[in-house]
């Protein structure tokens, strides 16, 4: 499902600095996440969690090594093929990233519309996802009218409406209180039980203790432990 072999990521050096001055965000990562697994991604701020997730969501190519996601080798995949692959990956962010001018319903429908799904029947899928996320009463609201927890559940509904094989969450509970955080986690775990491969980056230790699962632990861009 996800295979990293000797992966390094170095951001471009700032202009005017000698080559190689760029900061190494990730170094020599080697691991495999089996299909249908649930993993925590742990580490301090700046340890490289977001960079690692960006590689997994095909938003960035590695500087070195092999990244294989959903059977595609990222360094050999042509740019034109990336959107179709990304449609099979769901992503949730700490800051929700809902489109502010679209209703909750239209936000959740957006991935389907981008994928060119015909309008007929599309809203039934959306309604089902909204029910799953406990948001059927908020479908017509704009994101700004929702609480943080509701916004994140809307974002989660949007991330899974395409039934992705891989679901990535970058600090999904970072802006939420404990009760809302547990609710998000329960939904992520439910996706996992339905067979989705799930990776959740966090530094909320209490949450990790409440939902024990294997973990990838990063420190300074290197993998400290796996499992």
């Amino acid at each position: 499902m996800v295979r990293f072999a000797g992966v390094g990521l170095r951001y471009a050096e700032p202009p005017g600095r000698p080559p190689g001055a760029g900061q190494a965000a990730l170094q020599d990562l080697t691991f495999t996440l089996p299909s249908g697994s649930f993993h925590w991604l742990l580490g301090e701020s700046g340890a490289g969690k977001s960079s690692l997730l960006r590689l997994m969501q095909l938003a960035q190519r590695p500087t070195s090594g092999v990244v294989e996601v959903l059977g595609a080798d990222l360094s050999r995949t042509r740019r034109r093929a990336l959107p179709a692959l990304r449609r099979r990956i769901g992503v949730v962010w700490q800051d929700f990233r809902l489109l502010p001018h679209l209703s909750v319903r239209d936000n959740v429908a957006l991935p389907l519309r981008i994928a060119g799904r015909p309008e007929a029947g599309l809203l039934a899928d959306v309604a089902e996802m909204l029910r799953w996320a406990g948001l059927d009463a908020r479908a017509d609201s704009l994101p700004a009218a929702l609480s943080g927890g509701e916004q994140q559940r809307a974002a989660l509904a949007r991330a899974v409406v395409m039934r992705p094989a891989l679901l990535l969450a970058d600090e999904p509970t970072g802006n939420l209180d404990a009760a809302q955080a547990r609710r998000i986690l329960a939904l992520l775990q439910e996706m996992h039980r339905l067979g989705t491969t799930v990776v959740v980056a966090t530094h909320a230790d209490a949450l990790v203790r409440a939902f024990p699962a294997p973990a990838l632990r990063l420190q300074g861009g290197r993998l400290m432990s796996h499992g």
Partner: protein
Amino acid sequence: MSWLTPTLQDLLLEAFWETLAMVGVSAAIAVAIGLPIALLLHVTGRGGLSPLPWLHRPLGILVNAVRSTPFIILMVAIIPFTRLVAGTSIGTAAAIVPLALAATAFLARLFENALREVDGGVVEAARAMGASRMQIVWKVLVPEALPGLIAAVTVALVSLVGFSAMAGAVGGGGLGDLGIRFGYQRFMPEVMATVVLLLILFVQGLQSLGDWLVRRLSRR
């Protein structure tokens, strides 16, 4: 109001229509050409959807060059081009060409700024959903920037009203030209005052309409 003869009334009305035509047509052209330029500037810029410095740089310089040329000079300098497009170098139609050119460059920058206001996180989210670059532009970037784009059009329309007053220099007519020819050159301050009052009302109307539209779109 004895000075407001029927002839003068006709002249005022005609001048108003000329101003409306010059502002309306050149604004429509400026939106149609300025938006693609702004999108190109935005997506080819550093950190854009397709960074292309070889395209971004010259385009930016071109836009700046038009913007930094004083309008009265621009109008005279492009007379050969105006003749090519409008078939003549004097009159209302001829005035529209330099007005449209100046407004296009102006709007391209204002539009670019409005596009830059769109939250980068939302764009990244659209990319993660598997949106192509075209889909990101038309389904996310433009709809999200719409209130800002409308506000930019309002600013451009108001500036165009001012620019159109200079169109008298190429016989473009309009309210500004009437004010100069009658109010100043024929010593009729009442005409000047009427023209200025009409322009103030016109600009107020444009601004209110623009603000109303922006409010409506932002609340959506």
